[in-house]
Structure formats: C-alpha cells, structure tokens
C-alpha cells in the first residue's frame, strides 16, 4: 500500500540576519493512508514546519517527500488538488456567515453548488454549528470560529487533511465535537495529519504517532508500540509519607505538590503498591500516559519551548 506521505531525509533550515535555526533535521518516516496520524512535540520541535512542507506551503532545504505519491518539489499542483489544510492560528474571514464561508471555500475549490449545499449542511450538523449557521463569523466565540475552520476542510472533497493544532483554544465539549468530526473523516478513508500539543488528543485520535524534538524524529509508531518501548511503563503516585530517597531504588522519581510520582517497571510497581498499602498511605497505579512517555524520552516537559519556536510559528 502506498503511504500517504513518505518523507525522505527532509531538512529545513531557517536563515535570518545573524544566524540560522535548523527546524527539521533529516526526518524520514511514512504516514499510512486512510488514518489519522498524530505529530506531537513541543513548540518549535518542527511539527508545523513538517506540515507546511508536506502541505506544499514551504520548500525544504534538502530532502523531499512524496504526498499521495507525488513529489512535493515538482508535483505540488497534483498534491494541492487532493489536500485541504487548517493552518495554525488561522481564523475565518470575519464578514461572512458560517454558511457563506463554508460555501465560499467549497466553491473556491471548484465544487458544484448543489454538492456544496449538501456537504455544508452535513458538516454544520456534525460539528454542532446549527445555531450559528447564519451568524457572522465576527460574532462567534473563538472556539466556534475554530470549528468553522475545521468544518470548511472537513466538508471538502480532499483526500488528505492537514490540521495544525485544530483544537487549540477550544473548550472540552467543543474539542470532543471536533474529535468526532475528525474521526468521521477517517471513516471516509481520508488521511488526516494532525499536529497537537494535547497528548490525550493525539492518543484518542491517532492510529500512529511521531514525536519530533528539536527537528529530529525521536520515536514513531502506534501509541501501544511507543508505550512498549518505554523502559519504565508504570506510573505510581504516592503521598508525602514517602521520601524521594526511599523511592529512588524503585525507579525514577518526580516531585508532586502533595507527594511523589514514580516511574517504574511492573515488578517494582507491585512491590511499592503492597508496601504502601501495608503502611496505610495513599497510592495509585496506572500505565504511563503519553505525557509521561514524552517526559521520559525528551527529558523536558511538553510546555517548554525550543529555540526554533519563533521561526516555526
């Protein structure tokens, strides 16, 4: 099966007065067709640069990528016929209503009017935008505007959707509605490349994930396979009746406000839980989250920024 994207030694260096920043460094991996693929990483890790290059908005410095079998360097027109994108921090044209904007976008892509109306009505229902369908976009909340942007591309006939942080700024309910709509897109066998900060979102939506850090691919695979690669696959939270020194022999300890977070292996996890129950202290055991995996692999939390952030955004 041809991958939706085959990235081949993709690199990008942004040059500016007095220096340069390497936003992508020899990134090679494949994105399978017909599924949602999550690209995760901190701000400035290279997610948006990767998306902009494969979405034919930006030329790479070296390397190339095949999108739906077409070369991004020479066959961008063929790619553009088949893709749609919600860029990071994009906003809809504010003097149109929700309906006018979706119709305008679809007709701009060359869609017939009757088909435009049908797809627009479907997506409005699906994303819960019925109440604001005839309201000017300038009078919508930030979350509603974001949903309108997502609605535009979901209503399109594109085979491949690029969504750059599509739920940033949305409340939890609106996020779930967008998630459901993205899920619907892949039920139609469309490919979705999703960049996100929210690891719960990446895990909930993506069949496969890639973690970028400082422009390099750190890990790639299904959420389960990534979890399996982690050396300390369990997280144990313990109250402050334990000291960090006591826990150090069981694994890696991180401080919490009222206790400790311990990353450990299965055997040690059982031992510490039994010891905690015997002592009568509060304890909770669960598999590591993607956030924990990120912390273990990168060594820094997700909300820390990198040097390339300004260039990338």
């Amino acid at each position, binding site marked *: 099966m041809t991958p939706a994207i085959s990235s081949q030694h993709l690199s990008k260096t942004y040059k500016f007065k007095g220096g340069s920043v390497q936003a992508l460094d020899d990134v090679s991996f494949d994105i399978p067709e017909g599924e949602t693929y999550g690209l995760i990483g901190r701000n400035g890790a290279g997610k948006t640069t990767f998306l902009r290059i494969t979405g034919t908005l930006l030329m790479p410095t070296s390397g190339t990528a095949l999108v739906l079998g077409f070369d991004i360097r020479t066959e*961008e027109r063929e790619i553009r016929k088949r893709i*749609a994108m919600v*860029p990071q921090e994009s906003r809809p044209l504010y003097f149109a209503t929700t309906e006018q904007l979706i119709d305008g976008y679809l007709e701009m892509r060359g869609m017939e009017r009757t088909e435009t109306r049908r797809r627009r009505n479907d997506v409005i229902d699906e994303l819960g935008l019925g109440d604001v369908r005839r309201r000017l976009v300038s009078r919508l909340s930030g979350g509603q505007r974001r949903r309108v942007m997502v609605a535009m591309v979901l209503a399109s006939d594109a085979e491949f959707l690029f969504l750059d942080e599509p739920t940033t700024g949305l409340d939890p309910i609106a996020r779930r509605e967008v998630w459901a709509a993205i899920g619907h897109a892949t039920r139609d066998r469309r490919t979705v490349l999703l960049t996100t900060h929210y690891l719960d979102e990446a895990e909930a939506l993506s069949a496969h994930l890639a973690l970028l850090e400082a422009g390099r691919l750190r890990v790639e695979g299904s959420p389960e396979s990534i979890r399996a690669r982690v050396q300390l696959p369990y997280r144990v939270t313990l109250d402050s009746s334990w000291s960090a020194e006591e826990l150090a022999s069981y694994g890696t300890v991180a401080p919490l406000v009222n206790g400790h977070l311990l990353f450990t292996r299965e055997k040690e996890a059982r031992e510490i839980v039994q010891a905690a129950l015997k002592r009568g202290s509060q304890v909770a055991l669960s598999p590591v989250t993607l956030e924990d995996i990120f912390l273990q692999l990168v060594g820094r939390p997700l909300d820390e920024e990198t040097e390339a952030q300004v260039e990338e955004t």
Partner: protein
Amino acid sequence: MSERNRLRSFLSIVYLNGILPMRSQPLYLVNTIASPLAFLFFVYVASHGALLAFGITGGLILTILTTGTGIQSDLVHYKQDLKFQDVVVASPVEAPVYVAGMAFSEFVYAVPGLALFIALSLVRIPGAPASGMHYTLEGSLTLFGTLVLVWAFASALGFTIATYFQDIRETFVFSPLLSLILTTVPPVYYPIQYIPADLRWAAYLSPTTYAADLVHRALCTVASSAGPSCYEAPSWSATALDWGVLVGLTAILFFLAATKARWREP
C-alpha cells in the same frame, strides 16, 4: 482544474473578498473615494474651477490605483493575520485565479468611485470652463483601456510586494508612499506644463503620467467647452508612447508577479 471550475473559483473569491465585505460594511466605499474626492475638491478650489477636468481625471486614476494598495493590504492581512492564503495555497486554487479574484474584488470596490467621477465629468458647472464633457467612442475606449491597464499593473505590483511583507504594518508605510509617487507628485491632478521644462523628465518616470496623459486627452479633446485646462489634439507618437509604456510596464509587472511573488515560501 477545468475552466468552469476556475471561473467558479474566481467568482467565489470575488464574492468572499468583494461583495460580502461591501454588503456588511458599506463604509468601506467611502474609504475608497475619500482621498480622490479630497484632491478634486482642493484642485477645484485652488484653480477656481479651471483644473476641474484634471481633478476628475486624477480622481479616476487615483481611485483605480487604490485597488493596487487595497490588494496589498488585503493580501497581507489574509496571509499573515488570518492565514487564509495558506488555506488557499493548500487547495486546488491556482495562484493566478486567486490573484485575479482578489484584484477583481478590489475593482468592485472602485466601481462606485469610478461611476461618481464619470458622473461628475458629465455635470456642467457654471463658471467651470472644462465641465460637462461629452464622451466620444474613441475617448470612452481610451478611458476604459487606460483604467484597465492601471488596474492591472497596480494589482500585479500590489500582489508581488504583498508576498514579501511579514506584517500588515509594512503596508501602512508602503501604501501612502506608493500613492505619493504614483498620484500626488506626478502630473495626474494638474497639467505637466506646470512642471518646469528641465524637470519634466522626472514626471515621466511615473507610469501614471502616461495614464493621465491618455485620460486627459480622452476627456478634454472631446469636451464641448474645452478650456485652458485641456490639451491640444494629441500627436500619434505621444499617444503611442503612452500606450507602449503602460502595456510594457503591465507586462513586466505580470512577469515579476509570475516569477518573483512568493506563493510558496522558499
């Protein structure tokens, strides 16, 4: 994209960028005609009506030229603030269709201003020797052709420049500068004879001088009451030079737009 789809795409851009904003905020139209009308008023008062025809032709040229500065700010706003251009680039819409749609939607804004100035040129004002003009077929075609060329080169220039700007504030600096160089200083609102003879060459560095030349002739040579503000009958060579410069410049700016504008970031 088929020709039919290109047309649909073009019309939807005109609708989104031209018709909808105009319908939701008609005051945009006042903004388009405010400067040309202010200049006309000043020229009319300062010349005691003698330069009315020049004020009107200047108004026509400035109105159509603002489509170039308008497209510049709209494109930068859509690209940098709304990221709408990224949405368009990552779609089947081709750059020429997008630019044509944006340029035509700016033209839609200019239409009421153009209609106003043409209407003013037809009104006979007592005491104003060059008022109440009559349009011949040749004069009308000259006027139409000149305005189309000015619109085309202003749009191509505006598009090319806009793709290099990183912030809309850069257009706040550049647009008035462009306006100054192309309409305020050159002999668009006044006769070139007002410039000292040994400095007239400088006026011919501006393409709008040639456009104004053509429009002045188109209007004044057919005026029923051709007064002191009007030209004498044009020579064939002067007319050919005017057309040649405008067509040549438009071709060069289209070439630059096609080869140098940044549709895809390097």
